[in-house]
């Protein structure tokens, strides 16, 4: 009698455990499939073409995210590593130093580090950057254009109708494949195929 009861209990336990495993397995597979389908070649996300960007500053103002999901990124292979950096320093700055009054960025989101005479490296603190593009204008006007804007997809909520795209004066915003979501300047190894810019 007891043996029969124990056998029944063991069978029930095994059934429940197996059921839970299958449920978890199917769920995980479902989630994975859903994620894979979500980021498939057929999906598109918003990105801006840095070669069309006219650094108007609207990326900072019109994004539904606060601060904007558009951030400055730096193409190090394009950068001249100049002491007098048009993206870091205000025009006719009093001194080529890190003092606040000489910096172009309103939030000091660009870190400047001495490498060796006469080179300086510039790094973006994305937590401070809000996509105003002042540095992009300075870098593009007076330098190699290595500082440029990109929509960061860990922040972008991929609105059906991007509120920045609606007001972008140069039509720089476009839909790009979700599995290739960035248009980074300076990555010349990829080639110039516009459908696969980065």
């Amino acid at each position, binding site marked *: 009698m007891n043996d029969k009861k124990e056998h029944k209990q063991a069978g029930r336990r095994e059934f429940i455990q197996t059921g839970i495993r299958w449920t978890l397995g199917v769920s995980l597979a479902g989630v994975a499939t859903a994620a894979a389908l979500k980021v498939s070649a057929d999906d598109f996300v918003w990105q801006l073409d840095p070669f069309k960007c006219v650094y108007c500053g609207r990326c900072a103002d019109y994004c539904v995210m606060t601060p904007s999901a558009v951030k400055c990124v730096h193409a190090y292979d394009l950068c*001249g590593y*100049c*002491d*007098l950096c*048009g993206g870091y320093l205000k*025009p*006719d*700055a009093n*001194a080529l*130093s*890190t*003092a*606040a009054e000489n*910096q172009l960025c309103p939030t*000091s989101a660009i870190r*400047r*580090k*001495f490498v060796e*005479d*006469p*080179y*300086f490296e510039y790094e973006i603190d994305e937590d401070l950057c809000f996509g105003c593009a002042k540095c992009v*204008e300075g870098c*593009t*006007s*007076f330098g190699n254009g290595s500082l440029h804007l990109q929509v960061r997809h860990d922040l972008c909520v991929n609105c059906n109708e991007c509120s920045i795209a609606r007001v972008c004066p140069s039509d720089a915003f476009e839909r790009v494949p979700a599995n290739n979501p960035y248009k980074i300047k300076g990555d010349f190894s990829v080639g110039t195929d516009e459908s696969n810019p980065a």
Partner: protein
Amino acid sequence: MVGLVALIGVLSFVFWLTKDPTNNLEASLPGEDNREAGNLIEEIIRIGENFNLFDNEAPEMEGTWPQFRGENFDNIASEKQNLKDSWSADEPEILWSVELGEGHAGPAIYKGKVYVLDYDEETREDALRCFSFANGKEIWRRSYGVHVKRNHGMSRTVPTVTEDYVVTIGPRCHVMCVARETGDFIWGIDMVKDYGTTLPQWYTAQCPLVDGDKVILAPGGSTIMMAVDIHSGEILWERPNEMQWKMSHSSIVPMNFNGRKMYVYSADGGVCGIAADGEDEGEVLWQSNAWNHSVVAPSPVIIDGGRIFLTAGYGAGGMMIRLNPQGEKFDVEVITEYKPKDGLACEQQTPVVWDGHLFGILPKDGGANRNQLVCVHPDDVQTFVWTSGKDSRFGLGPYIIADEKMYILDDDGTLTMIKPDKNRYIQLAQKKILDGHDAWGPLAIADDRLLMRDSKTMVCLDIGE
């Protein structure tokens, strides 16, 4: 209920009052980049120490382009040229080409020889290279070791050539004088060592001015301007830099006004005129810090009526000043000053005066007309007589006029020929000549030939009929 709301309100107010929203802010202070001052090791530089003679000859030719911006400092060929108005598919022909160190140094031409102050990246030398204008073969090379790191190119000046001498200024402000024919070293000056010159950003682009037997230099540092005997290297006079201006990329330009000859220099910090002759030679005739910008590359443009047009990049824009005689000296009157989007402005190249008008290419921050060739009248440099249009934009490259044609070199090595006209933009021909980038070095024309370069290669074009 009311009491509860009031309590929440009071607590919220206290919270708001006590919370400092600037708690997390960090002050941006000087020195956070950990900048270190200059080179830690003082380099021993022996100007003109090395010489190489090659087994080549240079056939004698007639033409000259003896210095930066030509014989008259106006970037217009002063000698008669007979140049084509159009190019066929295989024109203009490249007669020869030579590989150079990375940079923007321009050539000078003198009677069949071409002189370029190159930077040899392998031997790490400033190298004054003498080529045959006929075939591009190297005749001799006078050089000296100096460590120049790549910083938007290395070389960037044009030698000044006379019948007997060639005078150069290297990227790190080393002045060298050699015999024109043989390349024999005559004398040298280290402006950083001797005068405390602060190297301009990306090295100096100042080209030496030779006025008769005098070499005129603007070191900045302890001396704003000085004259050197070209034969011996003896210092003739020095004008102390009481204004504490720094050396710019601009070159000294001679000017005659109101019976006075003077040397005009646009420094980082201001602009001045130094007496070029008379008992007060070497004295400051006028100066102004109204034109005060940190990067000045174009040279002053002398306009009639004692006017001088000044322009620079990096947001500076343009300024027209007028000298008003005041006894033996001059007062400086600022006629107009504006930002680059509001009138003629140039970042690297110096505007050209042609038929009473100024021609120049606007910088990238020049507003809607950015990168266009524009024409203005000196009386109103903020109103464009014409612009080349949005389909005809150019870069930071040079432009030159000869035989009523203007040649414009774009950054990517595309050469455009236009007819300079004060009424409209007239394009005659355009062709991609070079494959490199940053084709910014000054052009030179002589004997119906054009010398041009990108960052690595110089070519000689046959542009004659």
